[in-house]
């Protein structure tokens, strides 16, 4: 054996301390949902107080319920896949889990857009930034993104691009649940785009804060 590697193994063994095992992705996912979803809903309701009754309408409408189901399923599967990505040895194919629910969600958005187009033509579509939507996007998206980053930081980043992509999708989807319930405009591609941009911003900020805190903790 190479002497320096042998010395390294001896040094690592001397440094050995008991560690707390990382819970399974399923358990961490439950924790994420239990913490982030209620905060996201409460924040969404607070920001959109004047439309609070909209939630009852949407929960009693079958189509809205189906759409909420696909969004929630997208959040669950993408979140689970992202959490699998930071635990080495887990299935490398977990990233495929959100493909079907996400496709279904996009299909429903597409169908909404088509109906809108049929009713009012191209004038119904506006791709300009909707600044009035932004407070709702921030309010509903912050908690899912921040909590997910904190959970991901406890693992090991083995495929960064895939993990960030899945985490962005998961946090956006969970934030979109609150948005879908309380925000008056119908969920369109534009709203989804805003949600994704906001989530990526949150993920970036949360990562920076987390990295800073880890460095401070290491420095004692």
């Amino acid at each position, binding site marked *: *054996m*190479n002497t*320096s*590697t042998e010395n*390294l*193994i*001896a040094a*690592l*063994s*001397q*440094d*050995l*301390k*008991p*560690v*707390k*095992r*990382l819970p*399974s*992705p*399923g358990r961490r996912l439950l924790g994420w949902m239990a913490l982030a979803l209620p905060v996201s809903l409460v924040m969404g309701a607070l920001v959109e107080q004047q439309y609070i009754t909209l939630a009852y309408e949407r929960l009693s409408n079958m189509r809205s319920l189906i759409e909420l189901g696909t969004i929630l399923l997208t959040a*669950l*599967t993408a979140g*689970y896949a992202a959490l*699998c990505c*930071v*635990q*080495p*040895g*887990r*299935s490398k194919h*977990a990233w495929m*889990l959100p493909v079907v629910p996400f496709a279904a969600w996009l299909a429903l958005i597409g169908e909404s857009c088509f109906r809108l187009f049929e009713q009012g033509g191209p004038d119904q579509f506006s791709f300009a930034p909707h600044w009035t939507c932004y407070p709702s996007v921030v309010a509903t998206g912050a908690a899912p993104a921040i909590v997910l980053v904190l959970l991901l930081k*406890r*693992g*090991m980043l*083995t*495929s960064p691009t895939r993990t960030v992509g899945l985490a962005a999708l998961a946090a956006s989807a969970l934030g979109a649940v609150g948005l879908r319930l309380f925000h008056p405009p119908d969920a369109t591609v534009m709203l989804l785009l805003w949600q994704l941009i906001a989530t990526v911003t949150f993920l970036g900020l949360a990562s920076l804060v987390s990295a800073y805190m880890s460095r401070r903790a290491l420095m004692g």
Partner: protein
Amino acid sequence: MTDGHVKSDTTTGVKGGKNQQWSEWMALAQDGDVAAYQSLLAAVLPLVRAIVGKRINDPDKAEDIVQDVMVSVHKNRHTYDPKLPFGPWLSTIAQRRTIDALRKMYRQGAQEVLVDEYPETFLSDETNVSPEDDLVFALGDDLNRALETLPAGQRTAVDLLKLREMSLKEASEASGMSVAALKVAMHRALKSLRAEMAPRVEL
């Protein structure tokens, strides 16, 4: 939803018994058992070397990466779930660290250029001779005229180091100038000569 478990360990080629033993050792190591941890690290080393060696040909670099992998295994031992086979966990970390190292090597390689000769001069004589000198010396009169324009110290440096082909030490003894002063004078002389002779020859 599946629980993401890897059922077979065909990717690493680690046999079931070994995997089971490693898994048990790691579970003990997570609880702080030093002996189990030492046995585990020594036992997995050949597999780590094999994974790294598949992509890295240079043995020294490969050993550095192997050590990186061992440090990563140590830092991330909390991520191992004893219910899962140990081989895929280890090989994922080893492959990740190898890819990181390869990326770093490619990045460094893109910033470096192979050169035939170094721009700086060094103490040994061999490093102070370049093909440029032959070209300059072939220009005879032009060179003599250019040399006359140089300050005395620089002219002495060129005379002793280039024309009489003395070593830096010999030139230092002959001129009374320090080795460092000679090198500086030589460097400045070459710069002046280059400027002076540029219209006549492209150095």
